[in-house]
């Protein structure tokens, strides 16, 4: 058996009396799209924050390709190949779309103590950035200030910036947040295209998208993983129905 891309062991995080992550054990296999779902307040974003290094867990360990990264900072984890997108669009609105991606390329192109040559003319940053924009379908908007992009385009840019750091693992926090149906559809295609090349941890409320994309799904409730399995397993799991999916239409999740 190969090493899991991420191995989470006994992770605990409390905020005062609130337990956000409760003794969580989880293996994310290399190359899979692993969706983490759960009701609001289940601790999904807190989990991403701990995986990306923004929050320190109170207990437990996180291994990245066999290496313990629990004590590493965000930049250090990024350097190892862990990239994150944000639930709230976190692009640089003053910069052009291309600049945004070029900046992400720059993050992993050696140190940035280079004071003289204009970054805006540096082909070693611009060319890879433009390639990514082309792959993701934003090349036509490259020169546009990112602030002028539509919401859906900004979410795409968000993914482009995560990809530009050449990660092996992507942590995506609700990439479809606030998107219309068409835009979600495009995002699903985009993420499907990344499958295989990247391991993806996906947090998402859009169940259509989750069941269409995920190889495996983990259901978090109050910081606890109550189930992990294939979409079929999860759909059939009684505990999940009771705790999260409820009795509503969510059970009749369509096949994409």
């Amino acid at each position, binding site marked *: 058996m190969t090493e899991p891309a991420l191995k989470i062991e006994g992770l605990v995080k409390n905020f005062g009396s609130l337990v956000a992550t409760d003794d969580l054990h989880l293996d994310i296999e290399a190359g899979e799209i692993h969706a983490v779902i759960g009701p609001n307040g289940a601790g999904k974003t807190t989990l991403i924050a701990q995986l990306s290094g923004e929050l320190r867990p109170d207990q437990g360990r996180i291994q990245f390709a066999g290496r313990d990264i629990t004590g590493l900072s965000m*930049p*250090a984890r990024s350097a190892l190949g862990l990239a994150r997108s944000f639930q709230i669009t976190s*692009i*640089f609105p003053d910069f052009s779309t291309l600049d945004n991606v070029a*900046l*992400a390329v720059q993050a992993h192109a050696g140190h940035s103590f280079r*004071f003289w040559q204009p970054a805006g003319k540096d082909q070693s940053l611009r060319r890879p950035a433009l390639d990514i924009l082309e792959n993701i379908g934003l090349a036509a908007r490259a020169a546009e200030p990112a602030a002028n992009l539509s919401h859906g385009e900004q979410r795409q840019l968000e993914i482009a910036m995560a990809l530009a750091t050449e990660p092996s693992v992507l942590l995506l926090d609700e990439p479809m947040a606030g998107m219309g149906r068409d835009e979600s559809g495009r995002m699903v295609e985009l993420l499907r295209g990344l499958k295989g090349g990247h391991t993806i941890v996906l947090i998402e409320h859009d169940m259509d998208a989750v069941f269409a994309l995920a190889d495996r799904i983990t259901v978090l409730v109050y910081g606890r993983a109550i189930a992990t399995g294939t979409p079929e397993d999860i759909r059939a799991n009684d505990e999940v129905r009771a705790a999260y999916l409820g009795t509503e239409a969510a059970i009749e999740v369509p096949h994409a």
Partner: protein
Amino acid sequence: MDRRQIWLSLATLALFAVVPPLTVIFDQPFYMDMVARIMVFAIAAVSLDLILGHGGMVSFGHAVYMGIGAYAVGILSYYGIDNGFLQIPLALAASALIGLIFGAMSLRTSGVYFIMITLAFAQMLYFLAISLEEFGGDDGMSSMRSEFAGLIDLNDAMHFYYLVFAVLAGVLFCLHRLVLSRFGMVIRASRTNERRMQAMGFPTYRYKLAAFTIAGTICGLAGALFANLNEFVSPDVMHWTHSGEIMIMVIMGGMGTLIGPVLGATAFLLLEEYLPQWMEMAMTDAGEHWAIIMGPILIAIVLFGRGGIHALLAASLGRNGNNGSKRDD
């Protein structure tokens, strides 16, 4: 970089360049000193703009680096060392070192803490300077003008003026390059969203610290020139109100534009010079109370004057003003 910004910068520098011949033609030597003074403060304001406007670090103790530069010159002069080739590097090294130390401490915090801590550190050196009886304490001490092995004679007002001019132009050019460089991208993006920068893999602290140190060093250079301008050094340079004034220059001119703070320094110092005279004309003895107008002017600029003088001029040059962080590729 915005073309209008470059034209505005060149036009401003061109205006500064023709001041000395004009003062000679019209026999008004006073103005040459006044504009030299404006340019010294402009250097300080431009250096603050690097961290404040581009980096989003609200440092409220920037005048302290002017003080360090000034005291470096003053103290060497006190011990009879007037050689500018020694004084200037020492001023730069001292302000860089203090900038590094203060920055390393203050940048561990952010927001209101950062503002208060930079202010408190500046106040610390202010009180240190006051307690140094050897160097005049509260009263300060006189300082000889730096010697440059006969290459330039700072006692010649024209020489001094063009030295300051050259430094200002050089600083503007270098910072212009720096802001557009990889380093500059990191600094500017960290202002907008530091968390995102870290998630992308930038250890932002060290870049911000480097920018903080660079700004302090340049301001130290302004301080060394300031000591030469006044032939006098006192703790007053480091007084916290001076830090506030440098900040006002940046805002008045338009932060994040580099040339804006130069315009802001000009406007502020001209206002300081002429506002009392105008008030005196309107009402006898009103001039001494110029601050009662200056205070509300300042509040009005903060509340309504987005983008400062730079935005006004840029708008009159073409399309709407640009905050300088946008770039046309």
